[in-house]
């Protein structure tokens, strides 16, 4: 330790003064540390967002930069919200969102409950189960098209192995009724581990003493499950639903590779529709309005949900 006169002064002076003596103030350092991140986020997120909002009131088209830009007011918004195709897309998204969340919560919670029994080797099996969610969704989606091939695909073969029938008799991604389920199955395969991990943390956070007390009061296992396990794991479950909800509302990569939105428009989720409008039809103004609507929807739903989540936590 070096004792310079500076240190002696520093030590003798009260805290805030001492800091000033030793170089930059905390406030300056705080700004130096935070500013680059905020600046980058402003440049890559906020500035584009403002630009999007501005474009959403125009008829701008990227592929015709020389055309005069007209301000069209709210016409883009009006056209999107009155377009029946938009509502079809919203329906497809809702189907995908609801069923993936239901299946993932049910399977994920069941798995977490079983893993929490702490049998031998449960850590190793947890890691194995987790693999799918860490992989690249686009690459996985592309490969699932192979698994879903009638006749040569593993999926059809395994299903008909159990149910009987001909593996070439159905096509998961070619049939308008099956395709919405094909994307639900692939997403559930990929993301159930996510819900499972969060539920497992929830179950592990419940202290044993509560169960011991319930046991003393001769509460049945069934009752313990509904009055202790579920309520105490609920905030975790809700958090898992929040994350999955936001992610699947944005869903693009897995589904676009798996079905490309087809057959027909049966699996055209909002992001896929938006991509077509913006980067295939090049209707920049229109798709900007679309993007704003989506963002407001996610943000609005998420805020309401977070409020509900906080209420559950406080209970």
């Amino acid at each position, binding site marked *: 330790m070096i004792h310079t006169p500076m240190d002696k002064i520093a030590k003798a002076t009260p805290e805030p003064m001492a800091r000033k003596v030793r170089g*930059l103030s905390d406030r300056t*350092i705080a700004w130096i540390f*935070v500013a680059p991140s905020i600046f980058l986020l402003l440049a890559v997120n906020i*500035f584009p967002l403002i630009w999007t909002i501005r474009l959403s009131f125009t008829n701008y088209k990227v592929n015709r930069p020389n055309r005069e830009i007209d301000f069209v007011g709210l016409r883009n918004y009006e056209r999107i919200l009155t377009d029946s195709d938009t509502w079809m897309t919203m329906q497809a998204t809702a189907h995908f969102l609801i069923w993936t969340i239901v299946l993932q919560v049910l399977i994920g919670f069941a798995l977490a409950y079983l893993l929490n029994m702490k049998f031998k080797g449960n850590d190793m099996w947890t890691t194995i*189960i987790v693999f799918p969610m860490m992989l690249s969704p686009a690459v996985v989606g592309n490969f699932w098209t192979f698994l879903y091939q009638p006749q040569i695909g593993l999926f059809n073969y395994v299903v008909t192995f159990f149910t009987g029938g001909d593996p070439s008799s159905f096509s998961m991604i070619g049939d308008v009724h099956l395709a919405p389920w094909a994307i639900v199955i692939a997403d559930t395969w990929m993301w159930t581990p996510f819900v499972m991990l969060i539920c497992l943390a929830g179950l592990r956070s419940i202290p044993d003493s509560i169960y011991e007390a319930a046991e003393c009061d001769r509460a049945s296992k069934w009752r313990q499950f509904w009055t202790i396990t579920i309520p105490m794991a609920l905030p975790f479950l809700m958090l898992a639903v929040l*994350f999955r909800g936001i992610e699947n509302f944005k869903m693009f990569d897995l589904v676009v590779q798996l079905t490309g939105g087809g057959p027909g428009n049966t699996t055209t989720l909002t992001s896929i529709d938006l991509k077509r409008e913006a980067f295939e039809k090049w209707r920049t103004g229109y798709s900007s309005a679309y993007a704003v609507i989506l963002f407001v929807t996610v943000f609005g739903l998420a805020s309401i949900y977070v409020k509900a989540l906080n209420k559950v936590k406080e209970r």
Partner: protein
Amino acid sequence: MSFSVTEPSNRTKWVAGTAVVLYAVITILPLMWIIATGFKSPADSISYPPKILFEPTLEGYVNLFTQRTRLNEEDLAALPPPETWYDEMVREQGQVITGASRYGERFMNSVIIGFGSTFLCMVLGTAAAYAFSRFRVPLKDDLLFFILSTRMMPPIAVAIPIFLMFRQLGLNDTHLGMILLYTAVNLSLSVWLLKGFIDEIPVEYEEAALIDGYTRFQAFYKVVLPQAATGIASTAIFCLIFAWNEYAFAVLLTSGTAQTAPPFIPTIIGVGGKDWPAVAAGATIFLVPVMVFTILLRKHLLRGITFGAVRK
């Protein structure tokens, strides 16, 4: 063994274990299938019923890394004898190698963009997280929420103005553009995760260092950084995995020079139709590093995927 009323009986454990193992086997099956398909011959890969036992071959991997054309038998016979094993393998299919495929290039792009953005993100993220953790930053909660909310936007929605902006700045289809973009996207994760890790380091260590005459900067990099090393490392791996797997921005903003592997792998086709072994080989090479990282990360996995909201 001590007796506990809450400990499940051995029989219950056995049943639970069996159910979980059954699920694990089913869930791992598609992954095993990807890896296995990479070692099949094109004929085996599309056989009916699907072949579980097959003669492994490296054809898929050779096809992945090469570009080939089909020749008729006379022309093939007129060629000088094959020099390498892979040359020979391709000749047996009635084809000749005409050059290297784009896969190696795309894979390297993934490496450059992945590591570049992760590094930048860690530098910016650690600094910001430290400031948020230790100092009274005005509007701290609002700023933190703002940082998190940037992750809620659908990538396609953000891509429209970014596409326009990058075009103006000449950043479309460049490594730098993608590195900056992925850094911005990953900042929310890294700031939130790292703040959690730094919050756990007792402030007393730094206070002791400050009393010993360290400046704030010195205290930061000599005391806090080493303490946070594990947290920084696992956060870095999460950022790397995200950048590695990302598809939406990559497919919209890159086409040639800076294209990463995820948009490229699905476009692999062989001579005459989809070459599934080559696709599977490409996918395997691309997915295996992430699986290794997952094993390394298993203790911090939960924290990483929930932005630090759940800590075990």
